[in-house]
């Protein structure tokens, strides 16, 4: 059945169930155009993988739950403000916080009219003085939206409209994975049958070379790794679930079906159809990220605009220094050490021979 295929003892358990059922690599499809930023995937991931919670003090208030992935957070929904930079809806918020609606230089009647056309009848308490800062912020946003459409009534391309976009960030499960090349103890390996990069936590030394190598900045070290305590962690594509014919936890939880999971070929077809649809709707730069990058990623992303807009490298690469370091410096170093050992061995034998030739001298 699997003649010629070497399957190590460690892998048997993992591959056994799929020996008969493997039909090809699997992939996860992230559709940014559908994501509503609810972060159910983050919660589901934490719940299934029991990764625990981060210290809230390390993650001050912001739109995102975390600025970046952490040792305990294997996926993060990243928030991006896209569209015309000049009319960015939320720049004002960070520059100088609005404390009262009356601070805004706007015509009250006009504001109410705009509000009603956009959001329905004006609530009676819209201009009550005693309000929380949060409701003030919402009102300010509404005001900015109305102002924007007033100034740019001729917008035709939807990607020019300022808007939030959400990208679920996590391991891309690359075919040509830099982390695997960087790992000195083979703790990171790739399951090519199912298509994911697994991490053997027992073997991991926590050296962090994968953290430096990953072009997506995915693996994260535990706190204290600097002193040799703590290891690396990252998404495993819920390998335990998919081997039992279940979808990954994040996919299972996604309310608007922005996440899909299935055979990679099918996911590529689905993604391409989404791209075609987005292009029809005016998103000219829509792109299926991961189809060809790094030999093919097993996490595909439907991007409504350029990869750079979502902090993704347009051409991700395995860092070049890995070749210099692992293929030149280290083999030469090993050769130097072996050469010295051989030379000393020769010296010892030679000195004994010379000693016996010399007879009783010394």
């Amino acid at each position, binding site marked *: 059945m699997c003649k010629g295929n070497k399957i190590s003892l460690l892998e048997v358990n993992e591959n056994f169930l799929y020996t008969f059922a493997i039909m090809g690599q699997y992939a996860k499809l992230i559709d940014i155009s559908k994501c509503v930023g609810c972060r159910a995937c983050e919660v589901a991931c934490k719940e299934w993988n029991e990764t625990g919670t981060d210290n809230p003090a390390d993650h001050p208030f912001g739109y995102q739950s975390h600025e970046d992935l952490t040792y305990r957070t294997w996926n993060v929904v990243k928030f991006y403000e896209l569209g015309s930079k000049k009319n960015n809806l939320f720049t004002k918020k960070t520059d100088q916080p609005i404390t009262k609606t009356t601070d805004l230089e706007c015509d009250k009647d006009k504001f109410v009219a705009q509000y009603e056309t956009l959001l329905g009848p004006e609530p009676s308490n819209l201009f009550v003085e005693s309000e929380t800062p949060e409701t003030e912020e919402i009102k300010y946003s509404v005001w900015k939206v109305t102002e924007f459409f007033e100034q740019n009534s001729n917008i035709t391309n939807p990607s020019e409209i300022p808007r939030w976009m959400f990208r679920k960030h996590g391991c891309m499960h690359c075919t040509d994975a830099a982390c695997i090349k960087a790992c000195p103890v083979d703790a990171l390996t790739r399951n090519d049958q199912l298509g994911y990069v697994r991490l053997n936590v027992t073997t991991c030394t926590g050296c962090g070379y994968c953290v430096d190598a990953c072009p997506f900045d995915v693996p994260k070290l535990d706190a204290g790794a600097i002193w040799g305590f703590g290891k690396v962690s990252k998404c495993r594509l819920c390998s335990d679930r998919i081997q039992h014919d279940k979808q990954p936890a994040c996919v299972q939880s996604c309310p608007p079906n922005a996440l899909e999971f299935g055979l990679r070929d099918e996911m590529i077809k689905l993604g391409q159809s989404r791209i075609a649809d987005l292009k029809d709707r005016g998103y000219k730069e829509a792109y299926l990220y991961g189809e060809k990058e790094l030999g093919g990623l097993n996490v595909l992303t439907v991007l409504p605009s350029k990869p750079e807009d979502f902090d993704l490298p347009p051409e991700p690469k395995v860092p070049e220094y890995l070749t210099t*370091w692992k293929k030149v410096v280290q083999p030469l*170093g090993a050769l130097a050490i072996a050469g010295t050992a051989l030379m*000393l061995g020769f010296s010892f034998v030679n000195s004994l021979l010379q*000693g016996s030739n010399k007879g009783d001298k010394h």
Partner: protein
Amino acid sequence: MAEEINNALVKVSEQRVERIKLHERISHTINALGFLLAAGTGLVLFYKGLKRLSGGTRSRQLHRVGAALMIAAPFFVWGKDWQGWKKTWREITYFSKEDREFLKRAPMYMLGFPAKMPLQGKFNAGQKMNFLMVTFNAAGFVVTGGLLMLRRHLPEKAFPYLIIAHDIQAVIGICGFMAHAYLALLHPDTRASFRAIIDGTVPLEYAMGHHALWYEDEVKNNNNP
């Protein structure tokens, strides 16, 4: 008569002179232990054939222990006898004409061929080279190792240079260590000096033969037991 002469010769050959002081031996031992620990655990991340010996994070913790030992080692000398260290350093960094000649002939001597070596002081030119290599390599290890620990706060571009420099230093250190250990433990001419690092003494005969200038200058007058 012949027996008396023989006895006298035996007596001379049994005489030992102090060469390395106690605090220097302590320092050397701690440095050696630290080096072995750091080199052994470092090789686990260097050569994939040793990956099963990593013991998870244990190898990395021991690597830091090794580094701490190596950093602590020189303070035993500096703290105990600063003047002595200064004198040693002056000797180490001075290469005389004989020393240069010694270095030229040293490879053949290392390889076990008979070679007539020039007269040497307390440290021969090879020992001086080893001492300098250890000193500068140690300083380099502190820099590259320390920066590697702090690399999350450094620009991303720094990592390749640091790790490659650290690896090259490790190779230099390990090769140097092997040659040093070979001369002390195995080489038929010099292994007599190994006891110097245990109890601090070398045979009088050895001091006269291998460190003749040192013997003439210091041992003969002051230190003769």
